[in-house]
């Protein structure tokens, strides 16, 4: 038997006191790597499995200390700010250690499941009082299935409630590795139409739909459906109607639905990573519109809330 604690993976954050990622007070582990490329992605740092340099221009004092530190000369100063040649940069991280202004940070840490579990366990007293636990998020946690399974299994052994936040885009045998240790799934449904789904996320949705039905009916796992509401992309009344119909008929009226309104956090993140964002243009939905969408779910007998 493998030593669960030793299994390694890439994460980019462990966030404590999360109150919108499942029941109670939770600790959410953000894992790197994702097979989807949603146009509206709020966590672009999750896409790649590699380390990345995160540069916050507002903090950079233009002191130039990082220039000689870089072993391959990937940095120069332009208009008083450090500029990194991302084609050269090896993400070795040396420059982050010399910057006195916290302008350069490394995104992504290689950690063992045991280390992640220790961080989760730190907040055990809060899970007990609030009915919370751990949530794996990302990125797509199933992208690192063995690691995810190890972390979750350690949690289960310690009596900690587990949730998995997933796009559901994974082969069934991968899901089967992880599901036994999951108490609750926060399952994204981004679009009902396969070709629109393909356009918005880079992949089709057949597998996703099959998976959620199997998880819910066959594996009898509790599921919460989460729908990002992205004006201009998936918020048409037809699509929302189709989504509500799918949840109500294919899953069941007792499956809770969360509507997650779009916001703009992701934009500056792309900039900080020196990554060209995908062509995308949307604005946060109005309250009125959200209410309208909410009504559609209600008319299908579903319980729906705005926000996670």
């Amino acid at each position, binding site marked *: 038997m493998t030593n669960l604690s030793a299994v390694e993976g890439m994460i980019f954050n462990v966030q404590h*006191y999360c109150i919108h990622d499942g029941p*109670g007070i939770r600790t959410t582990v953000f894992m790197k790597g994702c097979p989807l490329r949603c146009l509206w*992605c709020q966590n672009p740092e999750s896409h790649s499995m590699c380390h990345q340099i995160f540069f916050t221009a507002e903090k950079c004092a233009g002191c130039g200390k990082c220039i000689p530190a870089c072993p391959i000369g990937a940095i120069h100063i332009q208009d008083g700010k450090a500029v990194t040649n991302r084609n050269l940069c090896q993400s070795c991280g040396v420059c982050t250690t010399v910057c006195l202004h916290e302008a350069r940070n490394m995104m992504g840490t290689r950690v063992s499941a045991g280390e992640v579990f220790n961080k989760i366990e730190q907040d055990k007293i809060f899970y*007990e009082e609030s009915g919370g636990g751990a949530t794996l998020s990302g990125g797509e946690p199933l992208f690192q299935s063995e690691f995810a399974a190890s972390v979750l299994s350690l949690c289960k052994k310690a009596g900690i409630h587990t949730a998995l936040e997933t796009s559901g885009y994974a082969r069934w045998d991968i899901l089967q590795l992880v599901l036994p240790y999951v108490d609750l799934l926060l399952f994204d449904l981004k679009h009902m139409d396969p070709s629109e789904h393909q356009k918005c996320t880079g992949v089709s949705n057949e597998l996703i739909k099959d998976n959620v039905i199997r998880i819910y009916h066959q594996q009898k796992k509790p599921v919460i459906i989460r729908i990002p509401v992205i004006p201009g992309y998936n918020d048409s009344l037809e699509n929302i109607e189709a989504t509500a119909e799918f949840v109500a008929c294919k899953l069941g009226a007792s499956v809770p639905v969360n509507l997650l309104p779009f916001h703009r956090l992701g934009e500056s993140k792309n900039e900080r990573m020196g990554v060209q964002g995908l062509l995308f243009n949307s604005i946060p939905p109005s309250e009125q519109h959200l209410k309208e969408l909410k009504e559609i779910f209600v008319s299908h007998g579903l319980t729906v809330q705005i926000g996670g």
Partner: protein
Amino acid sequence: MNERVKKLKQRLYVHKYPLCIEKFRLITKSLEKTEGDPEILRRAKTLANVLDNITVFIEDDELIVGNVASKPMGLEIDHDYGTWSQEEIDALKEEGYTISPEDEEELKTLNHYYKGKSLVSRMGEILFDNERLWPFVQSGMVLPPWKSKGEGSGGGYAQGGMGLGPGLYLMGIDFAKILNDGLYKIIEEAEEELQRVKYIDADSVKKTYFLKSVLITHKAIIRFADRFADLAAEMEQRETNAVRKQELERIAETCRRVPAKPARTFYEAMQSFWFIFLMITPSPTAAAGRFDQYMYPFYKKDIAEGRATDEDVLELLECLRIKDMQLNRVSGKLNRQKNSGMAKWHNWTIGGVTTEGEDATNELSYLILEAAKDCPTPHHTITVRVHEKTSDDFMLKALEVVKAGVGMPAFIGDKSYINFFVNNGVDLRDARDYIVTGCLDANLPGKSRTASIAMFIVPLVLEITFHNGVEPRSGRQIGLKTGALEDFQTFDDLLEAFKSQLAYFMELNAERDNIELIANQELLPDPVRSSFMVDAIKEGKALLDRTMPFENGAVMNPVGMINVADSLAAIKKLVFEEKTVTMKQLQEALSANWSGEEFEEIRKMCLEAPKYGNDDDYADLIAGDLYKFWAETTATFATALGGKHLPTAISITAHGPGGEMTGATPDGRYAGEVLADGTMSPMRGMDSGGPTAIIKSAVKIDQDPYQATLLNMKFHPSALESREDLLKLSSLIKTYFKFSGKHIQFNIVDRATLLDAQAHPEKHRDLVVRVAGYSAYFIQLGRAVQEEIIGRAEHDLQGVAN
């Protein structure tokens, strides 16, 4: 808010606050006439002279009457706390206060009368030529620094309230007894006792003076209420509006009855309460105690008998909030820095357990919260006692008020608060009846009082340890010689040296406290508050002349302890473990205030060292050890009132001026920068794990020995949107208290709002924030405090969905 409350509230926003001298004048006259009388009798007569002659008025729409100063929204110059220099008066005029030219002139004469008779000069008699104590009080280690012999420390006060000093006592009187028995009962008891005194010792003579002074003051209080009854009756005659006519009639009847006789209705109880509250102010720390408990029987009876509805009660509770807002206060410049924003801590304690250990929450507890939400004034403040059985509903109600953004209520944990008393030998039933006085300190109503609360700036001691007992900026040897830096071979050597210095200065603090206590005892005996303490008439002694059932006369209060803990953690790691920096280099970097490339790098290393507030044992255990040392050391010093010093840990806003005096510290802090706020809160920006990590760190500190501790958290509104969010926050609070945390309070404001308020104060006159145990209008705070509130770790919730 109904129309009445709206109108009353609107009148609180005045352009200028009048400074008044009527009370000062009346006091002076009386003091001249009573020269030579025993001090306590003199003060009783003085109070009577004020109550019999000061201007009284009833404002339109008022239901609860009793003006706090001779002019609406006025502040009376307080004669008890030093004199107002021209410079101070001028400064006040610039800051939005007015004084008429005649009054300003007269004030100079009045001032003259008090030369050399203040508390400050009384303390000075001992301090000035004491070789240990004078440099100590000058150093500012106990705030504020006492700059020169003439000046004293901080200047005078002007404030609302009809009673006499002393001001900053932390105590609660027995309101239940007053409301239920009335003052006549106490007068009767005092008269009987007076006849029983046998003159066999010094105490019996003193007892006579005490009892006589109680008779004088209590009769005067009744006459004072009668003046309002007369006035209301007179106004009623002239009033043409039928509704108001009826109200005035009721006011007249009520003031004729209370506080002389027992209150029969909720309305009478409220009016009685307010008259008595006026007598225990001016005091920024006058506490209402367990208001929801002793007022409940009146409420219940009124409701049962159909005399009042919840709306009526709510209106009165809101009127009381307005009344409390009229009790303004301003102090000398130096104290203004220490306690910004018209600081006062008129604390109403609600919830908690009964003396039998059951949940004490009742309908009135909810209404008191509703009044704060509906009529969001910064005062009075509310503290919610939380215990295992506190219902979700009540927590939700309290959190809704927090969410409304008035920075209240504060939450405190019954478990640790009760442990504090029980561990100090108090009977469990008494302990369960504790109340919050001042910011967060616990007291037993009628059974204990804290009269000396020094703010001790701990990082200054670390600095002095670095300089072998020398105060670096003055060059004076004010501490012990604990060894040069090179002598410290191990971390423990350094820690040992620091602790010896600390214990040495703490003892000086304790001595200073005793001098203050006795000066207060001799100069400011207070028959009124004394008479409302347990067995007061039988004991026949003033507050500070007796040893109370629970004796906590002086508490010692460490400010900036977290900066020292973080500093020591950095030193331990960098100097003694990793050996990447030497003590000498570190000291040079501190002296240079981190400027210079080499020193900036050292600062970076210091910043990256473990910090308290991240659930990392490395720094947390050091913090725990320091707080333990402080608590144990404090308890070794006797007080002049017959007990021992007790530890408390609230910093109010002392971390601001305390930080200003302190040079760079090894936690990476620059010279002059504010210290960590609260006492359980991490240094600003040094926590990265969020609220749960802070709480995990805080519960590693044994808080039970402390009379109070303080943990501030600022939440973004997004953390409190839904009912579920509030329940989660509630469980966070309960978890903290389950593990013996004492206190937590939240500021719910987003950054943008605060920044906008700085830029456009006129648009945000209503914006209330929590400063430290008290709430204040944001725009009235000094710039530095504003910046700090903006900068306080904001636990915005990330972890957004994809």
